[in-house]
């Protein structure tokens, strides 16, 4: 029983790249392993799915020098703009909230935004609108940054911009 569980875990956790990331030289062995993995896991697939298990672990899989920095700005009715949150600046009002590890997981992008990015922006904007009666619009954006030879460069270009206005559904 224990041996069976170990074998099953190894099959599930077998480190083969997903189909869209398979390199040419990997295609040979991946095309052999993947059908076996699928066939073995079919009767047991419900276990990792329901209990949210996996034996594939990756911490900082890529760690590329091109990263993002979240910036959230608020604009008041008279056009004044202020930074509500900027990653790396703990002095901002909402730093503890936004950087909580689970909250960060919902907005921290890979090379694309997370599936909860829009929901997060909507919730956070409503929270700021409730806390600050003068704020009318909110901007959420991720600045592209680059790190090389010990120096961090802010590129001044942004990605995944979102805008929320007071009263917007």
């Amino acid at each position, binding site marked *: 029983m*224990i041996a069976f569980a170990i074998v099953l875990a190894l099959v599930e956790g077998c480190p083969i790249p997903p189909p869209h990331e398979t390199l040419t030289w990997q295609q040979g062995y991946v095309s052999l392993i993947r059908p076996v993995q699928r066939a073995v896991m079919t009767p047991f697939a419900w276990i990792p799915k329901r209990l949210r298990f996996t034996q594939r672990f990756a911490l900082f899989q890529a760690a590329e020098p091109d990263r993002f920095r979240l910036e959230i700005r608020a604009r008041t009715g008279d056009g004044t703009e202020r930074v509500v949150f900027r990653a790396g600046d703990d002095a901002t009002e909402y730093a503890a909230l936004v950087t909580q590890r689970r909250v960060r997981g919902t907005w921290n992008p890979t090379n694309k935004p997370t*599936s909860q990015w829009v929901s997060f922006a909507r919730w956070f904007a409503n929270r700021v609108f409730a806390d600050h009666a003068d704020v009318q619009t909110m901007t959420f954006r991720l600045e592209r940054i680059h790190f090389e030879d010990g120096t961090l460069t802010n590129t001044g270009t942004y990605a995944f911009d979102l805008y929320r206005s007071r009263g917007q559904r």
Partner: protein
Amino acid sequence: MTGDRMRGAWRAWADLWDRREDAAALALVRIFVGLVLVVDYVDIWRLDLVEAIYAAPPDGFGVAYDGWGQALGPHGVWLVALVASIGIVTGTLTRVSCVVLLLASAQLAHMSPNAERGIDTILRIVAGVLALSRCHARWSVDAFVRAKLGRPMSHDVPAWPRYLLLLQLVWIYFSGGINKGGAPWFPHGGCTALANIFADPHVARFDPGWLEVAMPFTRIATAMTMLFELGAPLYLAFYYFDATRERGGRLRALCNRLRLRWVWIAVGLAFHLGIAIGMRLGIFPWGMLALYPVLLVPDEIRRALRLGQRRKIDAPANRASSPS
């Protein structure tokens, strides 16, 4: 001959998983893992984030999920997970607590998938293994109650859950190593991965200014991380050599003389403490370190326990100070 060998191998395998040992290592894992979980769940409540993380829009930024958690709502499922975590720390209805934690944590993961990190998966797996173990045979309310009822629990428990957790720990590191794909983790990419992570404002604890000076050290640390993760299966050999040191063999003697098992553990400790100091990854380093008692040979824990008891006996009794 082959049949005999097969039978011998099968017997050795069955004997391995049938061994018994003191419950101390598993009890320590139970307590540390439970503590990490309690701190994590309390942190969400402290920041008033339960509803935000787990409720579907517009109340929060979770996702609509049609599970049993729906009936309890975000606060209900969170509370169930917290109570189960307390049950795990204290060893109260331990097996039930472990199963409940596993189910509640999985439910929370469904309710907000991106709020879920690798460490949550790991701790769920650990809870599942602990549910099947006798980790409550020591330092638990269950053991206390059983002793009061005149049916004390034996400290001698099946060792296989600890072996399984040991394998799991080694696999986590190895899997982490082989799933790393970016060039910065390797010499051809300059081993700049750790510097890149330490400079990432989303996770870095300090301003990246210090990296200008420390770049060479971070390159060495990156290479060490890869060696540590990819070499994790070697720990099983080091452990085996240490546990069977009475047997001969040059390799065994060399590994034991160089204390490679302890070197590996020390690198692991440094790795996680480095993460805890330099990055804001929440419970990840602590959750991993909570599993480290399974790396110890039972004799080492027994010796530590005996040493603790001897110190208690040797210590002079506290006397009330004289009023004069």
